[in-house]
């Protein structure tokens, strides 16, 4: 396969925005998206008339509005420049970023906006679990067997424990670390810390996954403004953060056709593509936002992204290598676990965090120490049904 990446234009993130995540019964879907879009435009120093194309990522189904992209776009005053609607389940955020990136990289637009928004709490938990569980392979998994998203990850957790000796304590440490960061992130769903004992003692959801191993059901939005190198120069952007490599892949939605249950092959392939395009190796990454939908997912992500070898993820977190200032500072935003996981918003929320980190703008003891200024965002759909990896550099 010929890699045409070099023939494309360089693209930078020049503005980011983020709503407060959580149960947001105080706002509509449109108002929620606007919180992120308004901040992103302000951060970029632009207005709607500068945006040539808008990409709206939203998973939907849990919202009463079944075609949310157009109302969201219209409310934000972007009526005539889109929206291009993007959906890739929980990976919608980075899929939207990729789409907006490609408009700019290809020369179809000079400045593009990507927003991801989700209001998951318009239905109850049982309905939400059913929507998630139905995804991917309905008849053979949900209808016959009643699997849920937590259960799918639990099948991996159980296999990872049996094969590598990963423990429930290792998983609990991921929750403790991510809640610690969330408690310092004013935009996070959860504003408190948890202890290993609290995680281990929390109520079971799908063994070995417990309540405090799970990301919550959240509402939220995040947005990014992307610009070509010409536009960056023309606008005199102080600190552009460059999209230096994007990787994507997918895996069979049939749980039973997977080669193993100890890692996500879609992540491995997406990461390899992103590293190659960015011309870096995993050891160059200093700060990463990874898809910890459940704590086991973060442990597998360390391995699948190449931060540590397969099977050593539990040890990696236990040794503090993924702490703030460790080998890689992972999920310093609080991650999906602590910050919340409003599906389509999550990938762009990762970009928001990495951009702020690379610009060294973080508050309250959450700034990662940087030498190379290399950050990474990792967004997964379902249980590795799809994966996106984006390398960002200052």
């Amino acid at each position, binding site marked *: 396969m010929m890699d045409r990446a070099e023939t494309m234009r360089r693209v930078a993130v020049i503005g980011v925005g983020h709503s407060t995540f959580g*149960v947001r019964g*105080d706002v509509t879907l449109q108002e929620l998206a606007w919180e992120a879009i308004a901040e992103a435009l302000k951060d970029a120093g632009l207005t709607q008339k500068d945006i040539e194309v808008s990409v709206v990522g939203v998973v939907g189904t849990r919202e009463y509005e079944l075609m949310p992209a157009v109302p969201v776009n219209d409310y934000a005053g972007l009526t005539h420049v889109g929206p291009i609607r993007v959906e890739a389940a929980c990976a919608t955020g980075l899929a939207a970023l990729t789409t907006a990136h490609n408009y700019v990289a290809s020369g179809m637009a000079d400045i593009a906006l990507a927003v991801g928004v989700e209001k998951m709490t318009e239905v109850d938990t049982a309905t939400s679990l059913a929507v998630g569980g139905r995804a991917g392979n309905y008849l053979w998994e949900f209808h016959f*067997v*009643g699997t849920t998203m937590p259960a799918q990850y639990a099948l991996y957790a159980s296999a990872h424990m*049996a094969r590598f000796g990963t423990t429930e304590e290792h998983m609990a440490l991921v929750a403790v670390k991510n809640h610690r960061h969330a408690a310092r992130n004013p935009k996070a769903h959860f504003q408190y810390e948890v202890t290993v004992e609290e995680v281990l003692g929390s109520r079971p959801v*799908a063994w070995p996954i417990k309540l405090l191993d799970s990301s919550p059901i959240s509402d939220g939005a995040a947005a990014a403004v992307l610009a070509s190198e010409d536009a960056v120069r023309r606008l005199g952007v102080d600190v552009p953060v460059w999209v230096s490599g994007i990787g994507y892949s997918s895996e069979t939605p049939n749980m039973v056709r997977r080669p193993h249950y100890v890692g996500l092959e879609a992540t491995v392939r997406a990461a390899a593509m992103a590293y190659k395009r960015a011309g870096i190796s995993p050891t160059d990454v200093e700060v990463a936002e990874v898809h910890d939908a459940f704590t086991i997912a973060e442990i597998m992500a360390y391995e699948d992204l190449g931060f540590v070898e397969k099977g050593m993820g539990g040890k990696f977190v236990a040794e503090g290598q993924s702490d703030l200032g460790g080998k890689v500072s992972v999920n310093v935003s609080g991650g999906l676990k602590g910050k919340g996981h409003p599906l389509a918003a999550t990938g762009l929320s990762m970009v928001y965090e990495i951009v702020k980190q690379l610009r060294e703008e973080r508050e309250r003891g959450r700034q990662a120490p940087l030498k190379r200024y290399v950050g990474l965002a990792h967004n997964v759909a379902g249980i590795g049904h799809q994966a996106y990896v984006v390398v960002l550099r200052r």
Partner: protein
Amino acid sequence: MALTSLKEKIDEAVKQQLRLVDAVVGSTGFPIVPDQKTGDPQWIDVRELPLRYMLSLGGARKFFEGLAGGKLQATRCRACGTVYFPPQVDCPRCRVSDVEWVDVGEEGELVTWTVINVKPLTFSHHGDYVVGIVRMPIGVNVLAWISVGDPSGLRPGQRVRLVVGRREPEGYVTYWFEVPH
């Protein structure tokens, strides 16, 4: 509990909520209720959208004929030998649509499992259920419930036996695994 009584149980829960909404509409003129935790006003959607899909079985229709006869079957491509479970009648690998139906076998090895405690609404009438992935002799994996009293004794590689039968209370024919004594 057949399908009709399961539906009645769910409807009864919905009815109770609607009675509350009726009372609120009667007194305030709107189906608006405060959020229980924050007090933020929420409009209750009164145009319910019942979604009950029809699933065309397509090429899998033969699978259910097999299941009715107590057999769990996969398909095998006659051209390239690829075995498919769940079964499919088109082979994208060699682009030929000529498959034979083959038994997956009766005993397999447990690969991984979980216990589902927080359930979707349509499974909420069941107790916590154990779900596992089992490697079968013809080289395919099967996802199904594992019928076992205490799941803490389960081990990877453990032998489990396939059962085809009716699962109550829904009463339709399906498949699961048992742990032989």
